[in-house]
């Protein structure tokens, strides 16, 4: 699959939904017949996948939030995995 470009705009797929699970106190990603328990980075990335922000902007927001530029690799890795599972689409 193609590399994830800085100018792509990721969108959470319609079939997938983020949920705060108050019983377990975890962030979840829900989809047909499955649940992913998200770590906080994955949750923060997905919460920014609104189809308007570019990958570069998402990295910028999180780098500021975490005060660390090391986040870029994590963001690309998370988006790559979620795109493969069809939970995220990337529009140029």
């Amino acid at each position: 699959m193609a590399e994830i470009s800085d100018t792509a705009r990721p969108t959470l797929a319609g079939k997938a939904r983020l949920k705060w699970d108050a019983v377990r106190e975890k962030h979840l990603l829900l989809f047909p017949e499955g649940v992913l328990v998200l770590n906080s980075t994955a949750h923060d990335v997905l919460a920014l996948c609104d189809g308007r922000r570019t990958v570069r902007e998402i990295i910028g927001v999180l780098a500021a939030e975490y005060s660390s530029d090391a986040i870029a690799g994590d963001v690309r890795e998370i988006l790559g995995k979620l795109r493969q599972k069809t939970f995220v689409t990337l529009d140029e």
Partner: protein
Amino acid sequence: METPRPFSLLCELTYRCPLQCPYCSNPIDFARHAGELETAEWRRVLTEAAALGVVQAHFSGGEPLLRADVADIIRHARDLGLYTNLSTGGTLLTEEMAGRLRDAGLDSLQVSIQDAEEEMSDSMAGGAPSFRKKIAAARLVREIGFSLTLNVVLQRRNIDRIEAIIAMAEELGADRLELANTQFNGWALRNRGGLLPGKGQVEKAAVAASRAQERLKGRMDILYVLPDYFQQYPKACLHGWGRVFMTVAADGAVLPCQTAREIKGLQFENVRERGLEAIWFESEAFRKFRGTDWLPEPCQSCPRKGIDFGGCRCQAFLLTGDATATDPACSLAPAHGLIEEALAGGGDDKLIYRTVRESLRLS
């Protein structure tokens, strides 16, 4: 270890169905469980489930669209914040119904199709012709803006057409395809001679499925459920008994798995008599096979026991008469010879269809 809470609840809204698939996952004696839960009872079940930790409600049957209140029940689940998934045979999905489901907030819709060829699909589904209605339903699902999952059960009569089935799913715009090799419990076990594929068929299908998975990566998610009769180790049934999953059957019985009623001697409690949380944590049916302490040898000393939990309890019971036995599908199981015998046995053309009459006759 602390008992985990369930993520997922299967609501079998009814055991009624216009189709008669001979591998139906409903129990053989489905016709003897009358008295469907009413709307208010389903609402209460869902409310209790959400409090227990369930985040996903899957609605099936029988045919769930036979319930006039299906959209109301789904709306309640959505109001509770649950992810909602409906599995239908498709024949009753009108434009009006699809609109009501969308307005109720349904997250995902799954349509079952028996084959890529009309005549074969109709003959496997039994009853009135259904293939064209299913295709129309799948198109409607996409038109109305739902994501579409296509569910196909693989067996000896359709498995050679796996590529045509995948092409059909692509043409229909499915973004998920479930290719599930038949699980030989309940009805499917009765019909094993007519449904069990040969080794060559299974090997070819596995190659075709994995090629398609690679080719369609990112466009269509293909779930290929392995045929456990042909594997070295058994499936991790339910990801562990009483661990992440529970079923409420049409009549309110609470089951660890939708086929668990096949295990005679196991007592199931009913949501009409007790709350869901108490049943999950305390009922005998859920506690009996939870965790790994109860496992016999060779499972108990097996490094895979935390992976597959000894396999499928229903299969163990149905094949050996002992629900605590190692799943015979495992190559290490003392009763594995039963699987080898079945694989060596010849095919058979006769199928018993899942009808009320056959249910009453067989139970």
